[in-house]
């Protein structure tokens, strides 16, 4: 399990930065049959969270209609230097984590 994130290395305080995130995950819907007619069990990432300076700044609840390799682009206002943590959890107990450091400078 893996993920890709795109976060600027540095930003000025107050600047709004764009965050791109993608987890490698099959997002099996639970609505498909295999070639002998059995239902393929659901296996999806159902929650995604992004924390900045220890606070949740973006979260998502995912259903099977989110495409494979869930991808989110969102924004964040740079406050001060610190870590941005990303966590994807699936419905079988799988967890994917990723982190980035954002350096915030005076405007």
């Amino acid at each position, binding site marked *: 399990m893996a993920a890709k994130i795109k976060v600027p290395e540095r930003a000025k305080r107050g600047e*709004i930065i764009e965050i791109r995130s993608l987890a*490698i995950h*099959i997002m*099996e*819907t639970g*609505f*498909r*049959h*295999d*070639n002998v007619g059995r239902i*393929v069990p659901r296996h999806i990432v159902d929650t995604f969270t992004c924390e*900045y300076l220890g*606070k*949740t*700044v*973006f*979260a*998502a*609840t*995912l*259903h*099977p*209609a*989110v*495409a*494979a390799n*869930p*991808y*989110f*682009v*969102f*924004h*964040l*206002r740079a*406050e001060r230097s610190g870590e941005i943590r990303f966590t994807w959890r699936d419905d079988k107990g799988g967890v994917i984590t990723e982190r980035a450091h954002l350096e915030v400078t005076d405007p």
Partner: protein
Amino acid sequence: MLQATAAGMALSLIPWRFAQATPEAMAQAVRETFGVRPIREGRVLLELPKLAENGNVVPVTVSVDSPTTESDHVVAIHLFSERNPLPNIVAVFLGPHNGRARVATRIRLAETQKVLAVARMNDDSLWSASVEVVTTITGCG
């Protein structure tokens, strides 16, 4: 992982035969999420392709006209489907720290249908937009 991906690709060629959500099921999901409060059209820009050639991966961007301040910001954006197997697609949770109320993701659409976006503001007001998307290759939503 490689094997799982290959299996997934082979499976995706098999069309599903499942009961689908209906516009009524979507309305029910909206009521379960927000109660019976009024939902006004406006303030929400829902960007989806008019024609989704591959329903397995449909890019979507939702922007909400909001100053995104402590006193006036978006709390959540929910996407609903009226023709996927399930009416709920995704919900995202935002706040003033986002600076901009704009989110992009990729969704699955089982067939041609209306997609509904509802934004909940911090004053609990609800705003919406909907877009009709023609889907040519079904996605296992």
